[in-house]
Every structure is written in C-alpha cells, then in structure tokens.
C-alpha cells in the first residue's frame, strides 16, 4: 500500500526493493547531469532550480535571535551568488584556490558558499566560534587565499594574518563603519550591484568543491577534500532520507562550519528546490518551538545533544505550541539513544530518525528510512548504493555473524566520498584496509541487518556531535604557562554523549586550584573553541606512558568509561 506522506520512491517500494535495484544514475538523471559534462554545485542549487520554474519560490527564510528577518527566493540565490562570484573574480581569485567562510549563520554564508563554487574555487567553511589557534592551523594547512568574515570575528583573523602569507584578501561582509586594515576589503552582498548573468566556471564531477576539516587521533585536523560530484549523493539522500517534498519547510539546526550544515544545510535542500528556514540563534527550547510553530516547519533535522536538551525541558512546553506542521524528524551527530526516540514519539507524535555519516562520507550512509520500522537506539540500515559491513579489528576481514562487534567499514565508490586529505596522502591512505574505508567507529549488526553503534575506535572525542582531536587540545594545553604535560580524553556525558576531560601535570611553582582549573578551561575555549574546552580538569602527579615515553590515553579513557584497561605490560609506571 502506498503512503501519501512519502515521496514517490519510498511510497511505492520497500527498502529492500530500493536497495536491490539501486544505481546512483537515478540522481544523475533527476539532476540533469550528463556524465563527463560540466557539474557545478553552485549552479545546480540556484540557476538550475530557476530553470525548473521555481525562481520565485522562497529558498531561504532567515532570522536571528533578535527577530531580524531576511528572505531570499531561488532567483535571489542565483543573482546574489553571481554577485559574490564576480566580486571574487575581480579580486583575482583563481579556480582551485581556497576561500574560507568564517561567519555566523548569516545569509552571506549560505549564498557565499554557492558564489565561491561558481568561480571554480574551493569553499572552506569554518565554525565561527573557533579561536585563533584553531583558525590558524586550518588556514595554514589549506593555504587559504581569501576569507569571508564579519566584523565581530575579524579580530581573530587580524591576530594571525602575518602568519598567513597566502591569505590575500580578508572580506568583511558587514564592515559599514569599520576602519579597514591591510588586506581587508568590504563587501555588502545586498548593496553590491546585482549580477544577473555570470559565466559559471565549468567544473566537472571530480573538480574540488568543499574542504571540511575534521579531527583525528594524531596530528592536527585533516582537510577532507570533496568534489562537485558529491551533489549526486547529497541530493538523493536529502530526498529519500530527509523525505523532502516540493511544499516542505525544512529546518536543519547545523552550522555550515560543519559538514551537516553544508551537505544538508545548503546542498541537499537547495538541489531539491526546497524552502529552508534558518534561525541564527543559540539553544532556547521556547524559542525553537515558537520558531517551528510560526514557520510551519515540516521537516526537522536536528542533533541528539539538542534533542536531549529539549527532553530536559519536558513535554509541557511542547504542548504550549502548535507543532502539528512537523511531518518528519531526523537526527545526526552522534548515536541517538533509545530514550530520545521514544520521547520524541511521545512529545511530537513521531520519532526522530537517526542517521549516521561523517565528514569523509559527505552524505548519510547508514540510516533509519522514512517508513522503515525503527528500532529505538539503532543506526538503521545502509542507504541503497552504500555497501557497509563490520570488519574484524585484527584481520580487517568482514564479520558475518550477527551481534559481533567490529569496525564500521564502507566499500569505496559512492559519489560524495572524500577524495583526499589536503596535503596528507599518508593520513588518507591509512583510512583504508583490505579495500574498505574505515569510519573509525565500532558497531554490531543484528539478525535483521540493523546497525547498532558501540563507540569510537580511536581517541577522537565526539562531543555534541562534533569530533574533537585530543592532539590539538593537548598542544593548546601546553601553551598555558602552568601546564607541564597533558592528556585529553573523552568522558561520558548524559547530554553531549562525550565531553573533553583533561589530565594535567603542572610545572614547578604551580599548585592545583579551582582558579587554575577555570583559567585553563577558558584558555582552551578562547584559543581553540568552546567544544574543545575541557569540562573537567584533573591535576595529576604523572601520566601513564609507554616505555618509550608516549602518553597512553587509553588508560585514562577506560577509567572514565569504567571499562577494563586491558594489557598494561608496556606501561612504565605502576
């Protein structure tokens, strides 16, 4: 029986039927892409939608916490992204150069993203709460040529610009009365002469498009290089998993400084011609519910941390708002616990559908499909076209027995798969074993084929759905004058799944105190980001090390999780 609430494919075919006959050419055809021909995400998300007769349809309804509102049609997207693109070309930007977007969730961020891609340059979005050290590492690694920012964030760029010889242009989008410093230029998108026609650079499927930085266990963050062909995956997963329809009002909570905010906060909805709403505001349950009710949001893509914060506020507040417009709910970032799925069914009359993917996959790869039976707490099943399995942790051979734990692995070849790590080929190659891409997570598969998340397979900390690398935190901790040695590990947290905990030994002359703990916490928050700030610091006399002197985070992490430490024969102390 067909379900009118679902899109045509999902309404008429079961998951098994979709998976059996699947080919990514479905999306290519729907996007009008001719293999081997030009392919540009900026054009696909704006000009193409206008050509489909949707020029006057609202593409972006934006507002901030103060209630300021701005509205853009798809034709506005087309013309304003042309305007951004022409401005960049006039600055001398060349195809392939990296352009950073370092802004709050303002319209210039979303439209600027498309404009950068139209020039053939690579968009490099970075979370605006990053401190100057996090910013420096990522801009240095990418050799970024230009950066879009706001006057409230430009001081962080000014502090590091002398260390960035490649950075030619610092573009301030709201610098009406700001005195410009060297290399700075003003650009007010809506005040600039509108460019109705722009010759979009003829990028092709494998042309670099987006560079997202993600954290690993060792070394500094890695730049995951994506290509324009990624739109094929992002378009179809947005249509099938987020179940976007022509008349939907879609709200994605994610910031485009992270991959969800670009794959499903820009490319997914706009390649589908979907209207999206954006609330540039921090968390506030009352405000969020009021926003959903007033905007008549139909599809909501959120994150477990936000859902758990909403759970803390209870269901009474839900009943005070008319949320009847909500039709489909999905979640991403870290595993959605069963309690949250059950709560959302009680609070909203429908469950959140957990989706699993990561920066490197570029699109949802394991998911609870609309219409599929949800097992609360499960990740769901692989998206059609994605071959996913679990590998033995020692042999890297696929595990065939249900219920056994293994490493989540994907067979390479889906359109939005990361193509490389910027300037880090060795790090990229290390992600593959026996012809499989390793996600870095552990899971089990039940007898029905559902995946169940168990945890990370490395020292990366997943806090509030964002991966934070311990090395970057430890390096910044050593930048504090009191810190002699440090180790950063994950600590379980009921809201954020994990938070950062730091173990610190102090230099001579410093004593542990509450004051010092707060000072070190704020040091990390300002230099890296609030996400990286240890929520707890434990002052210790020494850290567990191997005989060669390497700090063993595993020992500390296991203690936090009450897990067995395992073989300690190589540890020096104890």
């Amino acid at each position, binding site marked *: 029986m067909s379900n009118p609430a679902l899109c045509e494919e999902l309404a008429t075919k079961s998951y098994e039927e979709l998976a059996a006959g699947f080919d990514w050419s479905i999306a290519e055809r729907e996007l009008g892409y001719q293999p081997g021909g030009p392919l540009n995400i900026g054009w696909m998300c704006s000009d193409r939608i206008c050509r489909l007769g949707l020029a006057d349809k609202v593409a972006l309804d934006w507002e901030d916490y103060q209630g300021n509102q701005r509205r853009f049609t798809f034709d506005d997207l087309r013309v304003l992204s042309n305007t951004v693109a022409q401005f960049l070309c006039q600055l001398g930007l060349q195809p392939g150069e990296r352009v950073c977007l370092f802004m709050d969730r303002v319209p210039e961020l979303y439209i600027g993203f498309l404009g950068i891609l139209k020039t053939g340059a690579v968009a490099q979005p970075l979370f605006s709460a990053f401190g100057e050290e996090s910013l420096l590492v990522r801009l240095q690694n990418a050799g970024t040529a230009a950066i879009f920012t706001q006057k409230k964030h430009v001081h962080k760029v000014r502090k590091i610009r002398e260390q960035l010889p490649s950075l030619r242009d610092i573009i301030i989008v709201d610098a009406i009365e700001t005195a410009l410093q060297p290399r700075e230029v003003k650009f007010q998108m809506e005040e600039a002469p509108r460019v109705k026609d722009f010759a979009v650079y003829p990028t092709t499927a494998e042309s670099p498009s987006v560079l997202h930085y993600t954290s690993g266990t060792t070394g500094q963050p890695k730049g995951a290089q994506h290509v324009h062909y990624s739109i094929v995956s992002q378009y179809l997963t947005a249509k099938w998993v987020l179940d976007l329809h022509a008349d939907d009002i879609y709200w994605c909570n994610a910031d485009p400084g992270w991959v969800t905010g670009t794959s499903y906060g820009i490319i997914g909805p706009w390649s589908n011609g979907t209207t999206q709403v954006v609330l540039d505001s921090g968390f*506030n349950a*009352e405000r969020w519910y009021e926003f959903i009710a007033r905007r008549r949001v139909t599809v909501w893509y959120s994150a477990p941390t936000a859902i758990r*914060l909403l759970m803390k*506020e209870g269901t009474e507040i839900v009943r005070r708002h008319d949320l009847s417009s909500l039709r489909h709910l999905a979640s991403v970032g870290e595993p959605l616990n069963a309690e949250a799925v059950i709560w959302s069914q009680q609070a909203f009359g429908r469950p959140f559908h957990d989706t699993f993917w990561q920066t490197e996959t570029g699109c949802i790869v394991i998911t609870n499909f609309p219409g599929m039976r949800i097992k609360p707490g499960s990740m769901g099943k692989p998206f059609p076209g994605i071959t996913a399995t679990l590998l033995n942790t020692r042999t890297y051979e696929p595990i065939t027995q249900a219920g056994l734990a293994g490493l989540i692995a994907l067979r390479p070849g889906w359109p939005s798969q990361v193509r490389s790590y910027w300037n880090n080929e060795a790090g990229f190659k290390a992600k593959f074993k026996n012809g499989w891409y390793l996600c870095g997570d552990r899971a089990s598969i039940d007898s029905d084929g559902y995946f169940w998340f168990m945890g990370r397979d490395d020292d990366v900390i997943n806090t509030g759905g964002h991966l934070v690398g311990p090395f970057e935190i430890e390096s910044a901790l050593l930048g504090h004058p009191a810190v002699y040695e440090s180790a950063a590990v994950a600590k379980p947290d009921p809201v954020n799944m994990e938070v950062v905990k730091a173990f610190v030994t102090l230099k001579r002359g410093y004593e542990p105190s509450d004051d010092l703990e707060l000072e070190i*916490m704020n040091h990390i928050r300002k230099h890296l980001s*609030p996400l990286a700030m240890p929520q707890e610091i434990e002052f210790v006399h020494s850290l567990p090390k191997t005989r060669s002197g390497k700090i063993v985070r595993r020992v500390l992490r296991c203690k936090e999780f009450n897990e067995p430490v395992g073989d300690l024969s190589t540890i020096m102390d104890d």
Partner: protein
Amino acid sequence: MDEIGKVVRNYVIREYLEEGDDREITETTPLISGGIVDSFSMVSLKRFLEKKYNIQIPDTDATPDAFDSVQRIVALVQRFQKPVTVGV
C-alpha cells in the same frame, strides 16, 4: 543592577564577548539564545559562579534557560545562596 548582576555582567563581557562584538550587555540580553555564551561555555560560567559565591548548582538546574540572561543567572545564584529551612 545589583552587585551580583554587575559581577556576572562584567565577567560575561570580559570572558565571552569577542573583541569586535560591540553588543551592549544588559540584565535581559539573551546570552545563550543570543549566541554569546554557548551550551559548552556555560560550564565555565557555572564554575565561575560556584567559586565566586561558594555555591553548588546542580546540573539539573544548570539549563540553557537558567543561564540565558544576567537577570536569570542572578536569580539562580540567589536561589542557591539562600539557606535551606527544614521544618518549623
């Protein structure tokens, strides 16, 4: 603005407002929903309050809503400063 309010306001300006951010912080300025203090940074603000006023704020009371303005933070601090009366 009372004394606690002034201390909180000054701390927020010093620690959380970015250098180029010229927003005025009043008793009612939205701190969490206004993006000045995010939910992660709230932990360091909570630590500051606990240390400064020698109080313990349970995690269940440390909600984004309770930290959303100087006024609400003052109310939170005062609630936990009050001595607990048991029986009559």
